[in-house]
């Protein structure tokens, strides 16, 4: 059995299959579906066009004459292809999706509707500003909501996702140091439990990383932190609530310590869903924080994106914010795109950020309001604590005590069973659940991070808890083979990840490469 660097098993062990083969390869509702390259042809098309007029080409003699190699399908064939494929996916709308750190909450369909209003969806980013007042107003109103909810004075809307927001915040920090001529400030403190994007981002901004360990309560080890402080510290990147699902209770002192050495405090706000309406990060002494609108504010994850990562900035960092941004002047919305005469660090994407996500997020905020947002936060935290408390005997909570929006378990309860976190996760698939986040954060052995979100009812959680208890008991009863064989009831059995990485096949080809 091989492992990747997360310690996950990456190739399937020998398992017993069903043996019951259909002629078609279909399994009832689960339809086998070939690639478009195997079912389409270059001449077929699902789009009709008017006839060409036949004008003289001005393509400069660079006409594309060789075959492109793009298959087409008619509309009914297209519909079937993608509907069949869609049915091989798990989704929030099907069941519990307790993927810790990803906040898989319900995606309201009103948000999809309003995001498609022509005044938001069918406007061009470079239209004259006078013709896009509604779109700019939406950006302005979203900014106001974000600043109020976070208690911060400014927000940059450009970032396209969480990691891009981190880039925004860390570029602002770098610009602030550069503006003071502090070119020795290049070390960034990052807890070991941080998400991989944190260290990757800091390095992209020209910083070096210094890891700080966690204490036995899952929080930053304050003594270790103090020992790492120094004049060359540019700042800290700290997630709060952290990736163990715990509030960093020393956060105000951490902010003071970092500020004391002239550094800035970047807070990873991926877990803001645990705080909205109850805690304002601005009251904790942070300088920058991204929000994941695709987590906290319910914009759909879409199978991996698109996201949106608006980044709030303190007074110290706000002058360095990227362009463009909106301002209101005498009842007119303006879009500031010029950096001349400002301290802005410039532009980080072609246009103005993820407008489609802005509309959805504002729709979510308006729908909830102050009372609904607070209730949602409380329910998310309550649901996680309910799951943690209910499973604390059968499984092994990593830290115990009260958690925030997600409950973290280690694999102690599986010790000696032969069952590993990965196997446990795959058995959840057979039970009709999407597994929790596994092997993250790295500081907890065999980590299982469960985030139910506020969207789950008590009845749904009770069923989930029963299943988790049952699986834990089954693992302890010595039935490891059951887990090693899982999943049985998914469209495919375990996939061979080692093979995929060793000889990468990243595209279809007519002839397999020699």
């Amino acid at each position, binding site marked *: 059995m091989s492992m990747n660097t997360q310690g996950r098993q990456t190739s399937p*062990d020998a398992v017993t299959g069903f043996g019951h083969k259909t002629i078609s390869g279909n399994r009832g509702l689960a339809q086998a579906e070939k690639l*478009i390259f195997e079912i389409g*042809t270059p*001449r077929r*098309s699902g789009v009709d066009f008017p006839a060409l007029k036949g*004008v*003289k080409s001005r393509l*400069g003699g*660079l006409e594309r004459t060789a075959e*492109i*190699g*793009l298959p*087409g399908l008619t509309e009914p064939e*297209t*519909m079937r292809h993608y*509907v069949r*494929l*869609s*049915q*091989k*996916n*798990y989704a*929030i709308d099907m069941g519990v*999706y307790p993927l810790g750190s990803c906040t*898989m909450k319900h995606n*309201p369909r009103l948000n999809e509707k309003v995001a498609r*209003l*022509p005044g938001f*969806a069918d406007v*061009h980013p470079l239209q004259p500003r006078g013709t896009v007042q509604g779109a700019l107003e*939406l950006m302005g109103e979203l900014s106001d909501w974000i600043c109020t*909810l976070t208690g911060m004075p400014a927000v940059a809307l450009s970032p*396209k*996702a969480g990691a891009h927001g981190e880039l925004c915040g860390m570029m602002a920090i770098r610009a602030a140091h550069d503006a003071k001529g502090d070119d020795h400030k290049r070390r960034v403190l990052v807890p070991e439990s941080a*998400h*991989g*994007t944190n260290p*990757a981002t800091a390095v992209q901004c020209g910083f070096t990383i210094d890891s700080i360990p966690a204490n036995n309560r899952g929080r930053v080890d304050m003594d270790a932190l103090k020992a790492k402080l120094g004049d060359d510290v540019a700042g800290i990147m700290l997630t709060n609530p952290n990736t163990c699902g715990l*509030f960093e209770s020393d956060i105000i002192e951490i902010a003071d310590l970092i500020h004391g050495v002239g550094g800035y405090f970047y807070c990873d706000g991926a877990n803001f869903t645990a705080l909205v*309406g109850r*805690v304002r990060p601005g009251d904790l002494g942070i300088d920058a924080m991204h929000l994941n609108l695709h987590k906290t504010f319910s914009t759909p*994850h879409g*199978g991996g*994106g*698109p996201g*949106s990562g608006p980044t709030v900035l303190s007074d110290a960092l706000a002058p360095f914010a990227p362009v463009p941004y909106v301002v209101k002047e005498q009842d007119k919305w303006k879009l500031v795109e010029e950096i001349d005469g400002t301290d802005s660090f410039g532009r980080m994407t072609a246009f*103005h950020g993820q*407008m489609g996500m802005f509309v959805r997020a*504002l*729709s979510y905020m308006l729908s*909830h*309001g102050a009372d609904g947002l607070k209730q949602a936060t409380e329910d998310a935290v309550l649901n996680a604590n*309910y799951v943690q*408390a209910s499973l604390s005997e059968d499984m092994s909570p990593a830290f115990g005590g*009260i958690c925030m929006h997600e409950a973290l378990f280690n694999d102690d309860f599986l010790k000696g069973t032969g069952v590993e976190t990965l196997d446990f*996760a795959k058995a959840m698939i057979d039970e009709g659940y999407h597994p929790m986040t596994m092997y993250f954060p790295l500081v907890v052995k065999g980590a299982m991070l469960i985030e139910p979100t506020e969207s789950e009812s008590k009845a749904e959680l009770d069923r989930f808890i029963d299943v988790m208890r049952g699986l834990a008991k089954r693992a302890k009863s010595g039935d490891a083979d059951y887990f090693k064989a899982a*999943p049985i009831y998914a469209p*495919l059995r375990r996939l061979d990840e080692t093979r995929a990485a060793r000889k990468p096949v*990243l*595209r279809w080809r007519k002839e397999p490469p020699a």
Partner: protein
Amino acid sequence: MRYLPLNNNDRKAMLDVVGVASVDDLFVDVPKSAIIDGLIDVPTHKTEAEVDAYLTAMAAKSRAAGAGPFFIGGGAYRHHIPATVDHLIQRSEFLTAYTPYQPEISQGTLQVLFEFQTQVAQLTGMEVANASMYDGSTACAEAALMACRVVRKRSKVKIASGLHPHYTATTENQCRLQGITLDIADCAPGKDAEILDGLDKDVAAIIVQSPNVFGEILDLEPYAEAAHAVGALLIAVFTEPVAFGAIKSPGEMGADIVVGEGQSIGVGLNFGGPYVGLFACKQKLVRQMPGRVCGETVDANGERGYVLTLSTREQHIRREKATSNICTNSGLCTVAFSIHMTLLGEAGLRKLAMINHEKACILTDKLTAIDGVELVTDTFFNEFTLRLPKNASDVVGDMVEQGVLGGLHASRLMDDQDDLLIVCATETNTDADMDAFVLALEGALS
């Protein structure tokens, strides 16, 4: 609250199980000074109908592109998107799934990604493509960083005069902080070839856009040859993928990395986002590629399936040594791109491209018939640049008053080109739109 399934009885029962008296006890680790008692200072909840009405009224304050004659390009293009695309991407299974980290229950997304990667590779004429970047501009920045990893010990990147200025700015911002020097030509039409002057062995890559920001089509072969002669890479950029239904792909002309904006296919204008960054390269460079990539494998029964692979390049495994910090990418927009491309097929894409080109040819002739209006770009696909006898920004403003969004004044994007107007025509423009444009421009110039 319509989105919250718990009621007060549930909450009470659950608090009992947790063993605390009230929900406030769940926030014990938060410093007291930071807890908000009562409600934060924003309005309270609204019904679905209220939010719908409120945002509909707000949206109505923008002039939608489709509400009248519209001829703006400049990195985002208005095309007709078949209704099937939007229907399919709103299926719960695509819309409300996360990144396919559990491949056994994510084969839908994974197979679409595999098909998408192949489509992008075919379209650009490259060997492989990744599963998307945020948009064309961030893909361009990542390509520059990648080139400096591939071509070791070189840290200079040259940018041609026709690269979209927002791409240049995005790229410069990312590269600067890593000590990469950028040699940036002033943005101007007809000057791309100057990038080849003084090309030396310090250069890791040259970045050239075609069709460029003015619409000119470049033969990339001499650029590839010159770059390769000094051991550098050619990064070819595009903002209008429909062009590759009509013109030679950058891969056919020798590019090493091809990046661009995929928004034209399946995604829509969206006031700038979300879009979909396309990223393709030669197979031998793949281990330096940023972003997620999907690959083929088999399951325990030997059945073909797909997984995210080569993750040892990525931040969740490699952390500070990752090729990029990107995590969430353009997910659903890749699905939209792929569905639209499947509906088109090769024949449809070629036809769409030729219609776009024809519209642009017809429009150029009409507009250059106006006194004092001169065509700056001899070659073009669906976007071209005009020199006006007047300040183009004023002209654009004047045409807005006449109900016509008549192109993009170059000064919105760059300095010193105040008399240039960049105009785009697509299959969505009717003859009547074009006539309205001609009248408006005549009016604005008179």
